[in-house]
């Protein structure tokens, strides 16, 4: 069961040994991290509305339930507010805009919150669903073809569903540079 309270989420140092069936947190099956890390990529499938994307698992430190967030005036649509996490205010990053979806409205929450640590800082990604970490052989990652999304670095066709891998580092770097310029 997913913890609702900040700082008590699911530890992702373990990797699911099974496929991507079943919502993360329902009946996760954990096993040892796969061998041959250089040939594989561990990714967390996450859904925003109807779109599944993949987040590099090494960025994801916790998966929480719906987290209350506070809108910040004049903030960018991709960065609409903050979440309180471990005694800090961390930015809430809404991937809906880059995915061509309607941005998160004030007081709207998504059922899951991924806490990611990227470029030495934490951020919260609200998503509607997240599944257990899936280890993909690197040959399954291919250049963007079906999905043409900003901040996507590759795509994977899994069981007939094409999912983009989100380039979180580039997204957060852009957000920071924009913040420094403002």
């Amino acid at each position: 069961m997913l913890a609702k309270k900040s700082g008590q989420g699911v530890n992702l140092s373990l990797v699911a040994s099974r496929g991507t069936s079943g919502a993360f947190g329902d009946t996760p099956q954990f096993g040892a991290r796969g061998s041959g890390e250089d040939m594989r990529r561990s990714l967390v499938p996450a859904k925003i509305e109807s779109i599944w994307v993949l987040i590099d698992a090494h960025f994801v430190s916790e998966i929480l339930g719906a987290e209350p967030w506070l809108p910040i005036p004049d903030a960018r649509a991709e960065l609409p507010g903050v979440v309180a996490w471990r005694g800090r205010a961390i930015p809430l990053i809404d991937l809906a805009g880059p995915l061509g979806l309607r941005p998160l409205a004030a007081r709207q929450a998504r059922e899951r919150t991924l806490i990611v640590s990227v470029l030495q800082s934490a951020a919260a990604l609200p998503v509607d669903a997240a599944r257990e970490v899936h280890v993909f052989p690197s040959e399954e990652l291919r250049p963007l073809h079906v999905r043409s999304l900003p901040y996507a670095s590759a795509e994977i066709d899994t069981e007939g569903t094409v999912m983009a891998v989100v380039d979180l580092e580039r997204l957060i770097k852009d957000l920071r540079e924009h913040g420094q310029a403002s």
Partner: protein
Amino acid sequence: MTHDDSRQVQLLAFEGELVRWAMPSQRVLSVIEERDWHGGLAKDAAQVAGIAVSSTLAPVRVLLLSDGARQVPVTVRGPLSLLELKSSDLLQLPPEFGRTSVVTKVAVQDGKPTLVVLDVTRLAEAVTDSVVGPAPSAQDEGSR
């Protein structure tokens, strides 16, 4: 001021359309009904901070803010409340939001972020074009 008091922060809080907002009350010298304000132009603090507030909210008050040697008037709309929080419940806004915003902190209550907190110095700088001067001889509704 006792040691315990120093660990508490008092905020004057207001309602916005999407977000509650506040400012440290120790920087508010006076709260004056708008009709009793006879100084110069007092800019709308929420508008300056980019916070949406209904223009029909009442009452309208003028706050006289202390910014060093200056006294800076701003208007605020709607009911106000006084909150007392631990200083540890005021969290710095992450750098991704920029360093020039009037909003620099958020307040946390029961573990949830509930208010944006304005930096009075930055607010005063943002309204610096407005009339700055000593407090008028108005009847204070209250003072901090």
